[in-house]
């Protein structure tokens, strides 16, 4: 599941951490808890620019080889997190077997109620109020009020007519 903060889930067979340098800081308290409890874990780096980057094909293979009962933590920039989440779900990780923690600038897709076009809105991580402004559909120019109604299939929030 997408969460704001990683939480240690006890009693798992093995713990899997998939992250980059900044994500490692976000996951550190969970890794510490796993190490302190002397539990088995694996850690894979991805998405950085350094040489220790793991290509997505290898990540796919790594995830595919995992057994039932393993628990996955992923912490990456929002734009990279989505593709890894889709990959993990396709491989068979359910929402109850994984936590996904994004950081950085988050992009939110808004589905236009009139033309069905998607407008991408950038949402700053630092924004305390998660409220999105009214936006203009980039496809049909309708002023949209962004709702909290979310479609995972569209990966978008519904934008309603803002003004009649």
């Amino acid at each position, binding site marked *: 599941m997408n969460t704001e903060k990683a939480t240690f889930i006890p009693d798992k067979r093995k713990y899997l951490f998939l992250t980059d340098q900044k994500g490692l800081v976000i996951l550190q308290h969970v890794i510490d808890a796993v190490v302190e409890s002397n539990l088995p874990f694996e850690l894979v780096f991805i998405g950085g620019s350094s040489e220790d980057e793991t290509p997505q094909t290898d990540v796919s293979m790594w995830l595919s080889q995992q057994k039932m009962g393993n628990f996955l933590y992923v912490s990456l920039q929002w734009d990279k997190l989505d593709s890894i989440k889709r990959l993990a779900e396709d491989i068979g990780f359910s929402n109850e077997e994984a936590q996904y923690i994004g950081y950085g600038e988050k992009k939110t897709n808004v589905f236009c109620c*009139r033309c*069905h076009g998607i407008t991408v809105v950038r949402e700053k991580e630092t924004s305390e109020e998660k409220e999105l402004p009214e936006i203009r559909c980039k496809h049909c120019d*309708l002023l949209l009020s962004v709702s909290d109604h979310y*479609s995972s299939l569209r990966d978008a929030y519904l934008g309603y007519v803002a003004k009649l």
Partner: protein
Amino acid sequence: MQVDELRRFPYPFKGDMYRYSNNSTPLEHACSIEVTSGYLREIGLKRKLLSKYPERCYQSRSHTLQGQWEILEFVSEHLTTYHPDKFMVRKNGNEWTFINKLLREEQSFTFGDETTLPFEPLDFIGRHVQEDMIFMMQRDGDLFLDAGQLCFPANWSLAFNVGMSFKEIHQPIPGFNEEKLDERILKFIMQMEAGDPWWRKNWSLMAGNRLDASIETFDEWGQDRKKVTKENAGEFVHLRVEVQKLFRLPLTNGILFTIHTHLLPLKKLASKREWLEQFTNILAELPSHIAEYKGIVSYRNSVLQYLEERLKERR
């Protein structure tokens, strides 16, 4: 509207107040469809919308085809059983010919082979009935909107909601989740068995008389809400009632949800004293969060003034 049509109108209220609830009751006349005097007009409108806005009016996920064939068979059976003078199916093994006598149309196809139909099975049979049709598939202890033909929605988007779980679909309804109504209704539907259909009536008010109150065109028809006055409410504002029927499909274990939308101008509603009194009380008492969700807030007072004046005339 004739007196007979007024008599047939699915007036939805019991008691003098309205709250969201699971108001489903067993459907005694186990027919998924109803053919009314508006058949030709409504089918014409449906097909026009489907042709002009296919994405808006029809959605299906690739794993629904078996269920769609089951729906085609299920609905055809109802059409030919309850309206044998209007519909007929000739079968020779899997070679079927569907005959619609009202439209003077015949379509031959091989049952189970969608390449022999001009549209997907749900889209095909939906073009012969006045109802909107939603197919929900059950898996992982939940229901998912996996296919639907929707031409006359009450301000929601099939294109956006396709693929959603039951609770995700109902998330925008205020209080629905907080009062755990979504959970209770989901459990109720999941326990439904084949052969025991249920039905309910849902209502709202409509400024104007459009059946196609899609969210995609809200910027057009929503403007009509500003035009309501106590002088024009009788003819302009309509009570919009959806007759919703739920069937468990025995083969795929999915749920077929049919929606037949009816409109009645308030002037006609007011012609029945019992309805006039009851609806006036309900509208006056309606909590603001329900009025807001149903889109009534901006013209509720004008409608109430109209209804109260009709009540005074009757005293």
